[in-house]
């Protein structure tokens, strides 16, 4: 297993574009801290975003994992191209001839993806912890370490998304087209949801129940947008008389759905590679 990781590490290490993207990704995560310094004047009051409670424990776990998750596209580009470049450089063929089995090949890619997710999760945890400790209004130990399931959800979400990228890289074989395909897939899911919600099952929540099983939707369901949880937004909504209730908690079955997709995508990648003549 270490051998496979080593092989993959060598391939990435010398690729300048991959290095730049990976570095950008991690730097951007630290830049979440910059949100703290956003200030804008309302009337003669200075409105500081950090004072709105976004860095309060345990809300910060939710907020930061949502913000950090939007950055995953940077790593997605790296992952899609590390897969499809093996096709365009024909190095996949050479790797197999040199004695790597198809199973090992997929495994080496998946382990790398796992390492990306793990490192990113740890990174997010540390950044959030530091941010929280400097800005949070509550610093009791029990509060700091509550709601940590968002960090777990973040990890599962990232792994699932990257496994999807791997699969697309193998399926489409060209990085640009694979990313395009990812976008199209997202549009299809959105349209499907719209049709189910507003046409077929109008006025009920059956549509949501179905859509939560789709890959991208299930991943985005894991960490829902945190903005409507902010006090300011809640108050504003209350004043407008449209108080809304939303379920922000992470359910075990949501995690399970994403894990199932992850397993399926890795398996499909392997099956596809096994079936193909190179």
């Amino acid at each position, binding site marked *: 297993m270490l051998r496979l990781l080593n092989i993959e590490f060598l*391939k990435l290490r*010398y690729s300048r574009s991959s290095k730049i993207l990976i570095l950008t990704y991690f730097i951007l995560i630290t830049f979440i801290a910059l949100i703290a310094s956003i200030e804008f004047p309302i009337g003669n009051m200075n409105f500081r975003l950090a004072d709105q409670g976004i860095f309060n424990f345990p809300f910060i776990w939710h907020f930061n994992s949502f913000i950090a998750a939007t950055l995953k596209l940077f790593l997605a580009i790296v992952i899609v191209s590390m897969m499809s470049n093996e096709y365009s450089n024909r190095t996949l063929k*050479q790797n197999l001839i*040199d004695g790597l089995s198809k199973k090992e090949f997929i495994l080496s890619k998946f382990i790398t993806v796992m390492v990306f997710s793990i490192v990113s999760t740890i990174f997010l945890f540390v950044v959030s912890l530091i941010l929280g400790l400097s800005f949070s209004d509550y610093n009791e130990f029990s509060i700091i370490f509550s709601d940590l399931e968002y960090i777990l959800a973040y990890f599962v979400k990232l792994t699932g998304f990257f496994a999807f990228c791997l699969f697309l890289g193998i399926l489409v074989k060209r990085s640009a087209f694979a990313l395009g395909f990812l976008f199209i897939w997202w549009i299809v899911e959105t349209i499907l949801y719209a049709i189910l919600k507003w046409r077929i099952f109008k006025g009920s929540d059956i549509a949501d129940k179905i859509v939560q099983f789709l890959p991208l939707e299930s991943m985005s369901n894991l960490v829902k947008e945190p903005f409507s949880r902010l006090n300011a937004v809640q108050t504003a909504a209350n004043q407008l008389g449209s108080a809304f209730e939303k379920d922000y908690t992470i359910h075990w079955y949501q995690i399970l759905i994403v894990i199932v997709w992850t397993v399926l995508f890795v398996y499909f990648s392997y099956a596809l590679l096994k079936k193909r003549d*190179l």
Partner: protein
Amino acid sequence: METILSINQLTKVYGPLKAVNNLSFTIEKGNVYGILGPNGSGKSTTLGMVLNVVNKTSGEFKWFDGAESTHEALKKVGAIIEHPNFYPYMTAAQNLELVCKIKGVPSHKVEEKLEVVGLLDRKDSKFRTFSLGMKQRLAIASALLNDPEILILDEPTNGLDPQGIHQIREIIRKIASDGTTILLASHLLDEVEKVCSHVVIIRKGVKLYSGPVDGINASHGFFELEAENTELLQQFLNEHPSIGKVSLKGNLVTAIIEEPMSASDINQYLFEKGLSLSYLIKRKESLEEQFLQLTNQTTA
């Protein structure tokens, strides 16, 4: 003899096309084999199947004693398929280190093998800056990293200039003289004739011949003769019981030999008949002629 690879009834079907049809042969240790066939005859497909990149339709193949899985066995094999495939953004040495990791050999081999193919001074240049000849030599170095039991080369000189071809052939000859088994696929006959001891000839996925290079054609060769009186020469030759077909091209008479017979035999026979020759040579068909004969036989 130790068997390195045995192929049994191997078949590959692409849609309506039978690329490889019930192909069987074995590779023994220490020989240099050529797989000969026109373009599109199934050479690369066959190699692709034994190298784990093309899925077979039916039949089987066995590496060594068949105890290991194919990908484990491939770690003891060195192979180059068509054009060299490496990571363009990595240097020669980095690419070879990666191959070392895959094959599980220590990376100190890298410099040694770069030396063999004469690329040591370019080891820190990126692969994409290499010329085709250099890429091909790097591919050979990569195939040699594990000191393979067998070296498989698929069209190694394809697209190279004469100098590049010469360099590659020299390298192959050097490797062969070290006792490494080599399997060389090519459509270039002189290439096979120059380096191979055994040959497998395939056409449209069907095996036509497999065995030693000089055993392709059982014929005893032919004479080329010239004399002042060409008509008389032809007449005497036709009367000789061991001579088959006699044909004339310009002043040159060609006589196919049907029974073992030396040049002095025919010289003496004609001299006794009162005819003196101005030109006499006994020849065997070149591999090219034999190959064309063989492939044409089955066209009809």
